[in-house]
């Protein structure tokens, strides 16, 4: 059997009458770009680890998804990113939680796996480790988008909405 690649960009209240044609095109374009990145690795005989990281990095840069650029805001108006990666060959794993200045959290998770004795790092410590690993650091404003800001404003301005009521809540 040859290689396989499956991706997701979030689940939630995704219905035809709630998604504009422009949004639909943007999402499908982003998903295709992620498949392209992962496929390019696998077609050349690359590893599953390299393929999933490549695909995720594309989605982290795409503001249409809730990861990296385009991530949702916290109550305090910040972007706090989480990521994890696992290698089925060895069951090695790496994860990061609550990071805010690393452009590609998935690459930081992989660095935790490959270059630290730990599985999960969080917050300031994870960001310090990212700098030591010379991963790309960006200003916190890199991640924000107007659409996500509006979602936060809706949540804050309507006490009848819960965290689980925001549309496309998982991405």
């Amino acid at each position, binding site marked *: 059997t040859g290689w*396989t690649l499956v991706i997701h960009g979030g689940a939630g209240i995704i219905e035809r009458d709630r998604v504009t044609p422009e949004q*639909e095109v943007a999402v499908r374009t982003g998903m295709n770009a992620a498949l392209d990145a992962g496929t390019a690795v696998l077609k050349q005989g690359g590893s599953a680890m390299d393929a999933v990281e490549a695909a995720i990095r594309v989605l982290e840069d795409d503001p249409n998804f809730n990861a990296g650029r385009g*991530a949702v805001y916290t109550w305090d108006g910040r972007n706090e990113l989480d990521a994890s990666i696992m290698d089925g*060959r060895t069951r090695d794993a790496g994860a990061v939680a609550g990071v805010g200045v690393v452009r590609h959290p998935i690459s930081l998770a992989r660095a935790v796996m490959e270059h630290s004795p730990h599985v999960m790092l969080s917050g300031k410590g994870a960001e310090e480790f990212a700098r030591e690993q010379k991963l790309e650091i960006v200003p916190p404003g890199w991640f924000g988008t107007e659409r996500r800001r509006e979602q936060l404003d809706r949540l804050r301005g309507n006490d009848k909405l819960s965290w689980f009521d925001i549309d496309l809540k998982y*991405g």
Partner: protein
Amino acid sequence: TVGAVARDAQGHVAAATSTGGLTGKRWDRIGDSPIIGAGTYADDRACAVSATGAGEYFIREGVAHEICARVRFTGETLKQAADAVMAEVKDLGGTGGVILTGPTGEMAWSFNTPGMYRAKVSADTPRIVEMYEEE
């Protein structure tokens, strides 16, 4: 949340998940995405899983590891295992979805929301990109 699972030509699998979490989250809340075994798991003996959804439920159910364990110990297909575990998540009140692939080359997904952004491709099959439940 975004995720990817893959099987390479050598037969090894991997899983990855990345997210901004929940809109308006407070108190340094962490969901399932970075929790190995909840939102992400990979094991060459079973499958690779990435999840998206109401993280608190996925953490409690140990969704990604639970699916892999069912595949490994019961011989269920990836789809059977994923549907069974997602049904249990729904019973708890949780919503979301998972994507999977395995060392045999099987690909699957399962979700209990009105839609999930999802796509797949393999060396032997054309790519599929879907958004809505009915696709």
